[in-house]
């Protein structure tokens, strides 16, 4: 039995590190999350970066918890500013209970600041550049993680470096560790984190990695893209895997080339992906329309950031939903998916390749900077039945690419695979794929293409109910707001409110209808300024959204903020 005092100790701490680009925030985040996870704690890390290579003010939030966590908090329990700008930037979020640790020598005066002489300790270990290792050591010491693990991590992390650098970092980290342990003894930070042996074997993944792994699991073997944050991470991940998996990776001259390459690749039998952000996707519109016309499978990863135009390149938003729904001239079917978790980022990307292939249409995976750059531990990814469901056929001499069939789906042949000829045409075409201006055929071909949209519903992904089904208020969300809504609702326990998370955005799943009918009060949470999904929902399900809970300052919702906004809107229970 715990004493009552002990029971109240937090099992969830929120550590925030802030500093300029180039000050090592990323390597501290990598080190800490790995060490914490390997010690059996659940971790979640989320970044706020500025679009610059040096300077600016970047921060990372790392949650360490006894249970699974995957949403950002407002609260800061331990703050480590590496420069004055970070202190100024994050000061408004500090509370009386927040512990602020920093190198007094590099920071402006701040009441309550506990001096952590990073530079001095690093220099004593041989080089001021060992400061990141000191910081990692200090946090690990403070949290009582074993020194051997830290040591093993550093040896591995610096294994490509000369032995003096490895040794220097180990000495620096050990000194930081001592500092952290000493601080822990003073009792300034009280917590009771529980380590779980099962967590040590968890996967530690970012959203970028989950999408990339999902692509590989979906049989992706071709990626052509033009760099644009936050879509670049997936491109980089796949480029790193190119040798091992035999992938074709091409940095195209522009997004127009990228998407046209992807279509050429699918035509010749590859499974191709393009990864981009709003601006690049806008340039791909004509290619998307071509996919619709030639009935080519295509997978597009659209990583959202705030727009319009260049917007805020390194921040987050869910502002491109309407773009994804409407991009491309003319009328053609498409599928739009928006993962809410790492598991979904993986499984939906994997599935996107099979569905694109099955229905011969473009599939758009809609993510955002927050989801992609966040890092969490998860037990496993669903790897069952790991074989891509290829749909192409071997052709014979009377093969016709656009044979009119009842389902609208014509067997897809590949050039060089069989005796037939595979002809695809961006002009309106006849069954053989040759240009045609026969207007009766035009109607038949349009019906054929659009017919696939309703076929698609057979595979529609039902939305997920968060909470109990005896709700009065239903809070709808989509994509990356899944975890934050889940946690905020958890904090509203006892109230007749539930959440409904959509990961298929178009065509909308019919399975949602009953939930939406049941709601006496319907709220929608989304990270944009106009409530794009709320409008779509009202139109598609003939329902009325009472309130749109929106955020569009470039940052993701935090748990506390969402909880508070929900609380203020909830109908009083009868």
């Amino acid at each position: 039995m715990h004493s009552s005092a002990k029971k109240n100790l937090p099992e969830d701490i929120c550590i925030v590190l802030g500093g300029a680009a180039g000050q090592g925030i990323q390597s501290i985040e990598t080190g800490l999350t790995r060490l914490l996870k390997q010690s059996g704690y659940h971790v979640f890390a989320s970044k706020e970066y500025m679009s610059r290579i040096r300077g600016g003010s970047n921060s990372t939030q790392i949650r360490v918890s006894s249970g699974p966590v995957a949403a950002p908090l407002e609260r800061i329990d331990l703050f480590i500013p590496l420069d004055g700008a970070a202190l100024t930037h994050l000061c408004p979020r500090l509370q009386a209970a927040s512990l602020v640790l920093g190198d007094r020598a590099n920071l402006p005066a701040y009441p309550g600041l506990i001096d952590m002489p990073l530079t001095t300790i690093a220099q004593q270990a041989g080089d001021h550049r060992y400061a990141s290792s000191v910081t990692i050591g200090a946090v690990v010491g403070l949290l009582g993680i074993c020194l051997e693990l830290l040591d093993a991590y550093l040896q591995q992390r610096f294994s490509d470096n000369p032995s003096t650098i490895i040794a220097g970092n180990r000495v620096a980290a050990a000194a930081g560790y001592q500092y952290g342990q000493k601080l822990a003894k003073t009792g300034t930070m009280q917590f009771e984190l529980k380590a779980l042996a099962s967590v040590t074997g968890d996967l530690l993944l970012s959203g970028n990695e989950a999408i990339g792994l999902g692509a590989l699991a979906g049989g992706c073997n071709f990626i052509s893209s033009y760099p644009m944050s936050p879509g670049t991470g997936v491109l980089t991940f796949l480029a790193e895997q190119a040798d091992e998996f035999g992938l074709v990776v091409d940095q195209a001259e522009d997004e127009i080339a990228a998407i046209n390459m992807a279509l050429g690749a699918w035509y010749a039998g590859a499974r191709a992906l393009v990864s981009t952000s709003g601006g690049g996707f806008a340039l791909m519109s004509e290619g998307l329309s071509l996919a619709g016309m030639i009935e080519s499978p295509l997978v597009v990863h659209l990583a959202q950031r705030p727009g319009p135009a260049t917007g805020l390149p390194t921040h987050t938003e869910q502002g491109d939903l309407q773009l994804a729904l409407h991009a491309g001239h003319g009328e053609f079917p498409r599928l739009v998916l928006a993962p809410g978790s790492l598991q979904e980022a993986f499984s939906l990307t994997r599935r996107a390749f099979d569905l694109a292939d099955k229905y011969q249409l473009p599939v758009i995976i809609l993510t955002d900077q927050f989801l992609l750059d966040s890092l969490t531990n998860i037990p496993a990814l669903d790897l069952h039945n790991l074989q891509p469901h290829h749909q192409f056929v071997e052709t014979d001499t009377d093969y016709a690419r656009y044979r009119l069939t009842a389902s609208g789906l014509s067997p897809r042949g590949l050039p060089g695979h069989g005796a037939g000829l595979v002809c695809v045409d961006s002009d309106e075409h006849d069954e053989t794929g040759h240009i045609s201006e026969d207007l009766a055929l035009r109607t038949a071909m349009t019906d054929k293409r659009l017919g696939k949209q309703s076929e698609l519903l057979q595979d529609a992904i039902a939305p997920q109910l968060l909470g109990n089904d005896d709700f009065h208020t239903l809070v709808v969300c989509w994509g990356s707001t899944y975890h934050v809504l889940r946690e905020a609702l958890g904090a509203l326990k006892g109230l007749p409110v539930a959440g409904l998370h959509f990961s298929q955005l178009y065509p909308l799943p019919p399975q949602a209808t009953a939930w939406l009918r049941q709601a006496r009060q319907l709220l929608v949470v989304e990270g944009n300024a106009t409530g794009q999904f709320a409008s779509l929902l009202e139109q598609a399900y003939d329902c009325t959204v009472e309130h749109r809970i929106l955020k569009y300052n470039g940052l993701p919702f935090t748990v506390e903020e969402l909880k508070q906004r929900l609380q203020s809107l909830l109908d009083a229970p009868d």
Partner: protein
Amino acid sequence: MKAQDYDRPNIDIAWCPGCGNFAILKILKQALAELAISPQNLVIASGIGQAAKTPHYLQTHIFNGLHGRALPAATAIKAANPQLTVIAEGGDGDMYGEGGNHFMHTIRRNPDLTHLVHNNMVYGLTKGQASPTSQRGFVTPLQIDGVCQEPFNPLSVAIALNASFVARVFVGAFEQGVAVFKAAIQHHGYALVDILQPCVTFNKLNTYAWFEEHTYPLENSHDPGSREQAFARACEMERLPLGIFYRSQDRKVFEKQLSAYKEDQRPLYQRPLESTKLQNLLNAKRSL
């Protein structure tokens, strides 16, 4: 094989009688026949325009994509299945205007494909506006005072970018056309053939007679191995030399350098999923 083996029966050709495109189609079929490339092994990617309709008029696999975008599609088709013979075909507007960026960057990549550009110095399909290669002073319904820009010189640009094969032919010279098409298709790497083609309907300036008068074959003494010589000859604008300006085997072929083909020569569609490797990659994400 015979040129007739590529005929498509009962087709309704959308070209004007007397158009230079007919001669290009004939040259192409002859070259393919002499090289014995089977229609099952040939893909022609094209864009939009009168020229870009060519693949519809012969037996072959076709990727008739967007205006200006044949080259990226063709590059990817070759990269996904290097066993195919790939040709990208279209007009001067298609390839040098709308697709100009791809023209430059395809040369940089150097995929093993043949780039056939029907250069009639006009936009045919859209009824007679100027193209990037239109001559100064060329009057059109849009350029009512005549074109005032410098004509685009595709050959000099290609040679400047170190394209590995650069040639020009005129539709009036059938034999040379067949020989150059064959050499281009057989060349390992990117091969540009700029094809001077009269548009009898919308270009009354650059007629058959004009081309006869303003072209001449490169002498036998021309050394296609010399980039300097090739560049100098490509810059001649008064009378346009015909033939193979430049040819080099020094450049590496794009798809041969891809990781995908380092150990495995099979087209991508024939490969199984690397599930063990995926498992291993995932397991690595479990450790420190």
